[in-house]
């Protein structure tokens, strides 16, 4: 095929296997929100910093295109909850199945992080007085809040401005940026897993060049894995909220380097990554952003909202306030199974809407009726939130407006109970799953260092950590801790053998003319998970899954081929995806009990959440052998005391 003149020559120089060596004190892998903040925070301490990004820093990562709400800034002046209380409530609402360390860092430093962002040029308040007098606006600070207007725990922000502001700051600080460079492995002292991390390797996905990064401290900020149960390039693009680049490179390389991971057994039925759904937040729906928008049926009949007791909420305004019947506050946290879910349960659209449609009470299709929204709400939701949410500014606000959509006159169709809504969950195929909110990742301490010396993590790379503000606050926290660590260690010599082995691994696909391509391999790997590690889990099924996975690694992985550097990058991704699938299968086999919060159902251990299983199960590997362990559910100790002892404010 390469001789065919109908193909354009590859536009970049081909530099396969050629080495470039780069040294710094701090190395940041991943240029999304967490990675940018880690790099900025380290560079502000005077460290030399290198940032490696598979995409382009200006917009890469889930939070690159934007962010419309900044969650859990317990330190913001309008919040009725202090960081301690907010963190406590969040943990309780999730029955402690969440990461106390990163949750506390978020609650305690969300606002100060946001103020720093404003200094860099990010827009965080209504400076033009567009929403003067609106119930969600604090008139003295011009800050705007979302969801619970009484308690002000979540801020509305203009997050489309954030990533360019972070990039400018990185440049100002002299951070050396390697874009279109995919981190492929961690380099360790003596080349052995489990020893100190002293650098990483990268693959330039335009030239195929091999980059060797040497550093005293390395942070992984490569988000959470996607494409483990479902992958279809023909379906997922516009409906996904996770870019294709989120393939779990960090999880896989941490595993190979001997780091401990936990909570890899948690997954959930597809929501924002739906194969056949409509653009996220782009069809009529009742999810978070759209709370103050009425939903109506095909005849215009309004569907009521109810409070935590199932009592009808009389007006739109009351949907943004805690229940009149003695509720102090509500948390916007979907999908909880925690014991105190009732205390913090948000208002919701009639939960049995599906049954009522089936009974004929409401007629399909449903619509979001923007025309009846209070004016402030319509402008803030269609304008500010849809204009800044990752990712809706262009795909929804602009594309729909250009096609004539008018929020003052039109009803947006919902595909609920039809082809598949972007956000309204309906009982359906729960075999198609994803790691999402609160999924697994590496175990960290209060310095956000993993169990491997010299290796840190930030954002969704860390287990049970999610969201834009969490990525920012953990990145900001880890940058400073890394600089402290780097001050006390030497740059170790790299092990040549380890580098050669990695080159052999990642360049193998370019030496094959044909075989199986990355997309087919990805889809095949997903089938293993759908068949043997999904809705119906049993010990023997999951063992079959591991056997099939072993077989694919033995028989199919050696047939992967790539004929340009871009496809080589994607091919290395799918090699990581099958590694992550192995972690998930092993983690699921370890948990011999079902769990509501973890969305974890075992046919052979049906009892939900027996107390003896309320603990983190951990796994790591050493020389190919898996070591299993566990950690107490609250292994982080006192949140407040530990945060203060390790916080950026005290020591930064």
């Amino acid at each position, binding site marked *: 095929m390469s001789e065919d003149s109908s193909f*354009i*020559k590859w*536009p970049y120089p081909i530099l396969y296997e050629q080495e470039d060596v780069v040294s710094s004190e701090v190395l940041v892998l991943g240029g999304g929100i967490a990675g940018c903040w880690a790099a900025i925070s380290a560079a502000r301490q005077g460290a030399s910093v290198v940032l490696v990004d*598979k*995409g*382009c820093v*200006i*917009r*890469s*990562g889930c939070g*690159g*295109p934007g962010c419309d709400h900044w969650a859990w800034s317990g330190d913001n002046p309008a919040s009725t909850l202090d960081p301690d209380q907010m963190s406590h409530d969040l943990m309780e609402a999730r029955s402690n199945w969440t990461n106390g360390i990163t949750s506390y860092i978020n609650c305690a430093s969300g606002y100060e992080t946001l103020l720093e962002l404003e200094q860099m040029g990010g827009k965080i308040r209504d400076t033009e007085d567009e929403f003067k007098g609106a119930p969600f606006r604090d008139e003295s600070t011009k800050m705007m809040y979302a969801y619970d207007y009484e308690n002000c725990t979540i801020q509305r922000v203009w997050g489309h401005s954030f990533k360019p502001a972070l990039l400018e700051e990185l440049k100002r600080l002299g951070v050396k940026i390697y874009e*279109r460079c995919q981190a492929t492995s961690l380099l360790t002292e003596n080349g052995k897993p489990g020893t100190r991390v002293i650098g990483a390797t990268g693959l330039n*996905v*335009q030239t195929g060049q091999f980059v060797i990064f040497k550093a005293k401290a390395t942070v992984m900020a490569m988000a959470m894995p996607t494409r483990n149960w479902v992958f279809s*390039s*023909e379906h997922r*693009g*516009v*409906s*996904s909220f996770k*870019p*294709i*680049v989120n393939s779990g490179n960090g999880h896989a390389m941490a595993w190979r380097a001997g780091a401990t991971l936990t909570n890899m057994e948690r997954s959930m039925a597809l929501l924002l990554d739906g194969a*056949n759904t*409509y*653009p996220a937040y*782009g*069809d009529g729906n009742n999810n978070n952003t759209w709370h103050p928008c009425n939903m109506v049926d095909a005849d*215009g009949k309004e569907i009521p909202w109810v409070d935590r007791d199932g009592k009808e909420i009389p007006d739109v305004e009351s949907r943004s306030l805690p229940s009149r019947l003695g509720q102090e506050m509500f948390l916007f946290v979907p999908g909880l199974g925690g014991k105190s879910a009732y205390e913090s349960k948000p208002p919701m659209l009639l939960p049995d809407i599906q049954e009522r449609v089936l009974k004929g009470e409401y007629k399909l299709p449903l*619509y979001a*009726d923007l*025309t009846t929204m209070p004016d402030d709400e319509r402008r803030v939701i269609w304008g500010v939130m849809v204009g800044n949410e*990752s*990712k809706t*500014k*262009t*795909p929804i606000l*602009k*594309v*729909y407006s*250009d*096609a*004539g*959509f*008018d929020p003052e*006159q*039109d*009803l*947006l*169709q919902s*595909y609920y109970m039809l082809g598949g809504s972007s956000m309204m969950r309906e009982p359906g195929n729960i075999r198609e799953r994803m790691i999402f909110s609160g999924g697994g990742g590496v175990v960290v301490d209060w310095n956000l260092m993993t169990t491997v010396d010299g290796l840190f993590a930030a954002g969704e790379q860390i287990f049970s950590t999610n969201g834009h503000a969490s990525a920012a606050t953990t990145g900001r926290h880890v940058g400073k801790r890394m600089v402290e660590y780097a001050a006390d260690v030497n740059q170790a010599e790299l092990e040549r053998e380890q580098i050669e082995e990695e080159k052999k691994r990642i360049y193998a696909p370019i030496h094959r003319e044909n075989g199986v391509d990355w*997309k087919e391999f990805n889809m095949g790997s997903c089938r293993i998970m759908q068949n043997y590690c999904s809705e119906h889990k049993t010990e023997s099924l999951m063992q079959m899954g591991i056997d099939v996975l072993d077989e694919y690694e033995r028989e199919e992985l050696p047939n992967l081929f790539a004929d340009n550097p*871009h496809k080589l990058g*994607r091919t290395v991704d799918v090699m990581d995806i099958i590694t992550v699938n192995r972690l998930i299968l092993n983690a699921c086999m370890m948990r011999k009990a079902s769990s509501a919060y973890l969305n974890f159902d075992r046919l052979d251990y049906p009892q939900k959440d027996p107390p003896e299983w309320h603990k983190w199960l951990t796994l790591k590997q050493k020389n190919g052998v898996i070591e299993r362990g566990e950690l107490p559910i609250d292994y982080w100790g006192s949140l407040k005391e530990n945060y203060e002892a390790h916080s950026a404010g005290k020591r930064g």
Partner: protein
Amino acid sequence: MRLTAQESGVNDMSKYDKQVYAKPNQVTPARPAIFNEDLCTGCNACMAACQADVFIPNPVEGKPPIILFPDECYYDGCCVEECPVEGAIRLNHPLMQKVRWKRKATGETFRVK
């Protein structure tokens, strides 16, 4: 009534004078973004803002970049936002995901174009 071959035109091959090639199916969705070649200056600003790296520069200077990997598009629209020329590039949702809406006053329905 039966038409002769000549009358129905089936033997008139002159209208099929275009060369037919043995082309594979194209990957779909194939057109996540559409360029207006009259407006695009080929500056490649769109390309630089694409985290999925779906574009390559056009070998002909001044021409729009080529969307080499349309099936990897994330549809975040950052390419459109970076474009210095209004209208030179637009995002094009896959046909299967073009959402509809209804004008309340008239009941007319519309869709994403």
